[in-house]
């Protein structure tokens, strides 16, 4: 069976509005999210990955505007898709999708629950809002989902307040809240960054299991390559608001094409290096500010393979040297057919 497309980003651009000028934050990105698949969005802070995630649910603050492109949500195979980018951010249609068809997990488990309401009430609120259920039914569903994410003694835990939960428990409760309406898309913005490795492993396990049993499509935002390797089916690498490389997790990690991806993989310590004591290779410099975007390829000032007169002048197009493996870099010009942008 062909994979079922659930969400499609076409030429999406988002800009920061300052007075009357626009500074691009996300630039012309294209992504596809399929049912039951995990797409990892990888990049350093400030690369636009969280902004992209927020835009999918129209949660962007006023200053950030979608200036171009479409966010197509497919309810099912038959009906034509809805363009989320054109909906009113407070309208009925988006509220029907947000939290119901598409749900989000935030990075900070400590700040994502209201301290004034029990965990159970906060999960039941979502259920009651989107599904016609009585209070008692909603409570049963809440207990069921808390149990699914591995919270011990869910019957009691449902009535407890967030401060009695540890970080890992809150993060799992947040997953329960996000999944209680069986959304077809889950957007997870660095869901394990604030957690310890052991708890991270638990949370990743829960997400993986949900993806398998419920067929949820996941957009997984992270900067941890190890987590990417374990979770993702497809990976998109972002740098300064652009997707610079995209492919399956195997292709991308085993055969990275873009110099930035290669550097990123070399900059993280690997356990295999304990004996060899190989020196880490940091990427020189740091990510430029959005206001000082370099001309040509945005990575060129930090790139060791930069071609003077070329990379610092022209923006490279997208090449496809291998099937389903895209890269935005002049170094791959010869080895591939070009695909227009």
């Amino acid at each position, binding site marked *: 069976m062909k994979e079922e497309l659930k969400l499609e980003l076409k030429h999406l651009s988002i800009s920061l509005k300052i007075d009357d000028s626009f500074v691009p934050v996300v630039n012309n990105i294209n992504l596809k999210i399929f049912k039951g698949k995990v797409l990892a969005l990888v990049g350093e802070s400030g690369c636009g990955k969280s902004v992209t995630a927020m835009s999918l649910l129209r949660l962007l603050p006023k200053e950030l505007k979608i200036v171009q492109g479409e966010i197509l949500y497919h309810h099912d195979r038959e009906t034509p898709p809805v363009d989320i980018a054109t909906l009113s951010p407070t309208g009925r249609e988006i509220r029907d999708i947000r939290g119901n068809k598409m749900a989000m997990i935030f990075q900070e488990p400590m700040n994502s629950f209201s301290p004034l309401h029990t965990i159970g009430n906060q999960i039941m609120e979502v259920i009651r809002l989107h599904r016609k259920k009585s209070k008692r039914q909603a409570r049963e569903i809440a207990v069921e989902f808390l149990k699914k994410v591995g919270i011990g003694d869910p019957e009691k835990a449902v009535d407890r307040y967030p401060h009695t939960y540890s970080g890992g428990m809150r993060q799992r409760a947040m997953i329960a809240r996000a999944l209680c309406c069986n959304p077809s898309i889950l957007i997870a913005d660095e869901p394990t960054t604030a957690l310890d490795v052991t708890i991270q*492993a638990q949370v990743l396990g829960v997400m993986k299991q949900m993806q398998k049993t419920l067929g949820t499509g996941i957009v997984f935002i992270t*900067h941890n390559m*190890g987590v990417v390797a374990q979770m993702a089916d497809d990976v998109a690498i972002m740098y300064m608001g652009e997707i610079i490389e995209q492919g399956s997790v195997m292709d991308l990690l085993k055969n990275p094409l873009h110099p930035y991806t290669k550097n990123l993989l070399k900059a993280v*310590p690997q*356990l295999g290096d304990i004996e060899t004591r190989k020196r*880490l290779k*940091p990427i020189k410099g740091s990510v430029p500010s959005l206001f000082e975007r370099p001309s040509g390829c945005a990575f060129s000032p930090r790139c060791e393979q930069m071609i003077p007169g070329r990379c610092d002048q022209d923006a490279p197009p997208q090449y496809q040297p291998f099937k389903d493996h895209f890269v935005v870099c002049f170094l791959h010009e010869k080895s591939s057919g070009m695909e227009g942008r």
Partner: protein
Amino acid sequence: MKTLIELDNLKVHFPIGRPRLFGKSHKKLKAVDGVSFKIQKGETLGLVGESGSGKTTLGRAVLRLIEPTEGKIFVRFNTEKVNLTDVSRKELRRHWRHMQMVFQDPYASLNPRMTVKEIIGESLLANNLASGRQLDDKVVYIAGLCNLDVGQLGRYPHAFSGGQRQRIAIARALVMRPQFIVADEPVSSLDVSIQAQILNLLKDLQGELGLTYLFIGHDLSTVAYACDRVAVMYLGQIVELTSTKQLYYTPKHPYTEALMSAIPSLDPEISIQNVILEGEQPNPADPPTGCPFHPRCRYAQKDRCSQEKPLFREISKDWFVACHFADTLQLKGAL
């Protein structure tokens, strides 16, 4: 090799709960509960554990930034061996010249109202070690060593990125020419590409200046890269301590095994085979009896582990484990 720091049964207990009508509070949170180890001159000792295990408290107690409740801290910066817990506050300041700290969050640890030059030079001024021209020279030299742009020292911290700020924090620690540095998660709040820069800098400085580090971290791959030996902490106690290689590849404590199995591999073909830890870390205010890890340990034997606290013992040369069954268990390491 020379022993630079030696901890002997170090304890840090915090009183919690309401005090009784007459007398002090009886409940205690044992953040650090009987830690003993030695740090050799020139090595990097890693300290890993989950949040709440007492890593940071231990790191601070070694410098007496938090007063230990019990136990001894021996330091040997010159020829004589000094018990740091015996010295007066005033004398302690003298010893602090040799031991400094780098904090986790460079966005919180630098005073926004001081220029970088003032931040780096402050401790020299406070200790009357330099002034005027000499002070400037020292600050510029150390800043250069930490790869900071010397022309920018007159600026305030807000003008610098996270990686640069952490360099400033490292320069501030180094300006006193310490022998020993406690680095409390020095790279956790930085981006991956910047982490590598800071880790390399710490290594280079160690080579040039002969520094000794206590490196606290929770990212196991980073700790493996940075450290010669690693200690694993659980609920205020060290459960295993040995060379990085032995600890990661052939752990002897079940908790170390569980930690190692949780590291996500960079190779997508190797899927994580979790030794799932059941439940959460127990409340440190109410630790389990016997071995602190026994409620979550899959090898625990009912009577013994819940009753008898295992000793932190040397099972082979330089390999310390606190587990009754360390000699017989066959545990899996990280790949």
